[in-house]
């Protein structure tokens, strides 16, 4: 049995927090519109459940077992994320994952550092993918280059390129404005230590960037409504995770996932009012079409 892939994130559910220690851990499965994990049925509306739903659907299409998940109940106070960081750091040697995808977690620098240290101490270094709040902590830690992938959107790319900003909320205007293009921002992010080795930049044109240089650009199909839909970045990160789990090289996986996420939009024909849950059922078809070329 190969080492597991672990997705770490949160759900904003206080009822979930009241159970046991507020953490859910184990293999996950997608059953209709629900995510099954550790005896719980979790609705797929947005956030980490949307990432996991897309990842499970993509794994099914690729003939893979779904990933394992470690989820904390955290509605923003950070206590659940803190528990997750502690549990993960302690369990890392036993789990010895071949890869980790980090998602919606409270950006806590001390928690981040503990987890990264535990991951880098493993005999076989795992692949490290970071999105959302954990990506913010990873950048702020000054250790972004230890990561294999970040998945920023336009606002987050400007934050990665601003060596002074500890969070996108503080990105300086000369970087957050319209003047700097994504290639320039990605290069600056790498040069100033704010970028992972690979970036998948989400936008009107998706970019795959390796060590500061854009290597792939994906611009079709163009479904502008996708930008407004909360969770389309989660479906993208879920598909990247599944493709990397299948053994594909990271930049190839990013390009294929970016294509698939756009095809997902074309298949679902959404409006800016569409919920991401309506997109997830199209993941297998979109992925197959993207991989077919």
């Amino acid at each position, binding site marked *: 049995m190969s080492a597991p892939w672990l997705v770490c994130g*949160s*759900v*904003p559910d206080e009822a979930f927090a009241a159970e046991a220690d507020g953490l859910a851990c184990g293999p996950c499965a997608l059953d209709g519109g629900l995510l099954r994990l550790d005896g719980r049925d979790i609705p797929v*509306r*947005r*956030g980490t459940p949307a990432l996991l739903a897309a990842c499970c659907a993509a794994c099914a299409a690729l003939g893979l077992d779904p990933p394992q998940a470690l989820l*904390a109940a*955290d*509605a*923003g*106070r*950070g206590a*659940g*994320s803190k528990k997750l960081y502690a549990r993960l750091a302690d369990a890392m040697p036993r789990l010895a994952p071949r890869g980790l995808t980090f998602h*919606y*977690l*409270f*950006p*806590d*620098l*001390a928690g*981040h550092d503990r987890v990264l240290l535990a991951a880098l101490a493993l005999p076989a270094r795992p692949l490290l993918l970071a*999105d*959302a*709040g*954990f*990506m*913010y*902590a990873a950048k*702020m830690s000054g250790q972004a280059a230890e990561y294999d992938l970040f998945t920023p*959107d336009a*606002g*987050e790319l400007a*934050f990665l390129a601003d060596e*002074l*900003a*500890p*969070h*996108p*909320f*503080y*990105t300086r*205007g000369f970087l*957050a*404005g*319209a003047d700097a293009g994504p290639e320039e921002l990605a290069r600056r992010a790498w040069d100033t230590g704010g970028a992972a080795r690979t970036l998948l930049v989400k936008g009107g044109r998706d970019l795959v960037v390796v060590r500061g240089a854009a290597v792939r650009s994906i611009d079709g199909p163009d479904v*502008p*409504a996708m*930008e*407004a*839909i*909360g*969770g*389309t*970045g989660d479906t993208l990160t879920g598909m990247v995770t599944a493709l990397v789990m299948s053994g594909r090289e990271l930049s190839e996986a990013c390009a294929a996932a970016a294509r698939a996420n756009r095809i997902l939009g074309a298949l679902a024909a959404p*409006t*800016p*009012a*569409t*919920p991401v849950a309506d997109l997830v059922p199209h993941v297998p078809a979109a992925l197959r079409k993207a991989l077919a070329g």
Partner: protein
Amino acid sequence: MRLFGRSRDAGKKGRDAGDRGVLAFAHTAEVIRAEATLKAAGFAVRVMGPPPDMRTGCDMVIEFELMREAAVRTALKAAGLEPLAVAPARGGMLAPVSLFSAKDFGDWLMVRAANMKITVARADRRIVNISGGGCPDVPALAELLVGRTIDDAPAPLSRGQTLCAYALELAFQEARRLLGARP
């Protein structure tokens, strides 16, 4: 994409950091409450990024007029808030994002502030989507706001806990401004 480049501090005179102090709290949620309390009491305050040596993650401090420290502490105490530390303002503090962009989807308007986007239906003024962000209260806020009108929805900062909630608040207020008063 249309960039307004509108600064929330546009037109205000620059402040001399020498007469300013910072209030630090245990949690971002307390900063949000303290800012609302002090603004309601008429104090000139603003949220800033803490100096590098005070940063722990998703955090911010409140900048205020140092000469008014006693009155500020009294107002905070009356609201049940106790700052962790009070210090003179110094270099290295960052201002919050002040640029907004908006995208017109015809029947819908999307407004972005920093990493947060909010989309509102023009016809019935309902919030239809919230996207972006990475702090764990974003999904909770989306569940709270989506489906309500921009006029009746609670302000994100009334429930939010993080800097993403703060960015969403800015986008929310900008969307209200762009859509104008309810007809």
